[in-house]
């Protein structure tokens, strides 16, 4: 097993002294290659803060975040930006696609920003879109796509160019249940192909796609489901 992401003693405090509020307290979390970890918890439990910190969007008050061996606390702003472009992929509830760019351009943007040649970027982008079943939609603009298709573009953008850590914040929140399930299947299959992921959700049905489910309460990990084999309840009866 290879740890793609490690959080060690991560604490996030807002304010100082008596009025300070702890959003996260002493959180330890490791996500391995090929593993999807779901984070569950009530509103205000620290789920989104944890995701921002894991993605280097926010610096923790104390503790260490290690992404593929890089310690974020000592990384320069340039290294962090590069890490976000090369190793991390974000998927949000509201897709966050750029409306004036085609599906393919949305997916290749992070690669081009990273200085990859246009032709190589397009090839990687086409591969990523094909892998999420959108090979017929390279030239479509976000407005021409359904919600489920837009989220698949967002997943393609999150994994393009061999990104290995996918951070998803309520990715099915804006989708109907059938489309949401299809998106979760897609995410799961990308993880199975060798990525790692964190999924923040309040829906048990979607959290259950993860290998492990971590519960946050008042900024602390209170419990987590065990990772176990792929034995299935119904397989035996089929």
């Amino acid at each position: 097993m290879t740890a793609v992401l490690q959080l060690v003693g991560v604490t996030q405090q807002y304010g100082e002294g008596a009025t300070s509020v702890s959003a996260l307290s002493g959180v330890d979390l490791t996500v391995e290659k090929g593993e999807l970890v779901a984070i569950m918890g009530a509103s205000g439990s620290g789920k989104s803060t944890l995701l921002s910190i894991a993605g280097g969007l926010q610096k923790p008050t104390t503790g260490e975040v290690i992404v593929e061996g890089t310690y974020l606390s000592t990384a320069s702003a340039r290294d962090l930006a590069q890490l976000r472009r090369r190793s991390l992929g974000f998927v949000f509830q509201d897709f966050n696609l750029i409306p004036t760019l085609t599906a393919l351009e949305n997916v290749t943007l992070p690669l081009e920003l990273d200085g990859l040649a246009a032709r190589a970027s397009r090839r990687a982008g086409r591969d990523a879109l094909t892998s999420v079943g959108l090979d017929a939609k390279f030239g479509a603009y976000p407005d021409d796509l359904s919600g489920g298709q837009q989220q698949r573009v967002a997943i393609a953008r999150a994994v393009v160019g061999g990104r290995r850590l996918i951070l998803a914040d309520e990715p099915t929140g804006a989708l109907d249940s059938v489309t949401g399930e299809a998106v979760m299947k897609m995410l799961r299959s990308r993880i199975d192909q060798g990525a790692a992921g964190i999924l923040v959700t309040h829906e048990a049905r979607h959290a259950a796609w993860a290998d492990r489910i971590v519960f946050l309460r008042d900024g602390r990990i209170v419990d987590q489901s065990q990772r176990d084999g792929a034995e299935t309840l119904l397989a035996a009866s089929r």
Partner: protein
Amino acid sequence: MSVRQSLLAILDQGPCYGYQLRAEFDRRTGSTWPLNVGQIYNTLDRLERDGLVEKGEVDEQGHVYWEITDSGRDEVRAWLSSPVARSQGTRDELAIKLAVAATLPGVDVTQVIQTQRLASLKQLQELNRAKYAGANPDGPEELAWSLVVDSMIFTAEAEVRWLDHTEQRLALHPRHAMALELSTEKPKRGRPVKTEQEVSA
């Protein structure tokens, strides 16, 4: 009674012999509710007694083909057009357990809830994996099977949502406010003694 009506609805599609009927039921429910041949023949006998099916042709192998009658067809239509009545009352073991646990001083209900939540999530994980592993999700048999799995998934999800809701409601109360110590009023055996008012009424 849905086995009886399910078999009848299948016979509405055309005559079947007993073993064939079992196979048809299995393939339409993803084998999630296995029936033995004895159950099938018992059910057919009762359906015949009630005038809903009758014995038809016998083939060379000796299979008796059962056919639906007009009354049988009416029964199928009535079944498909009426809602399924869920069991009434709150005899749900989990609901009772949580209600009692919430009133016991010294019991950490949050932990009781979390234990149940982990179990329900594990079940959901297993159901998702079973569905994920299924081949050709668009085939009619796979679809029928996954509809049954979906039903189990949504039931498990509803339980988790109810647990979340319960936990949040309990969190609004200071723990001691929920505690019910044993009452000092001891209930008497037998019927309560009538008060004077009741006697005079």
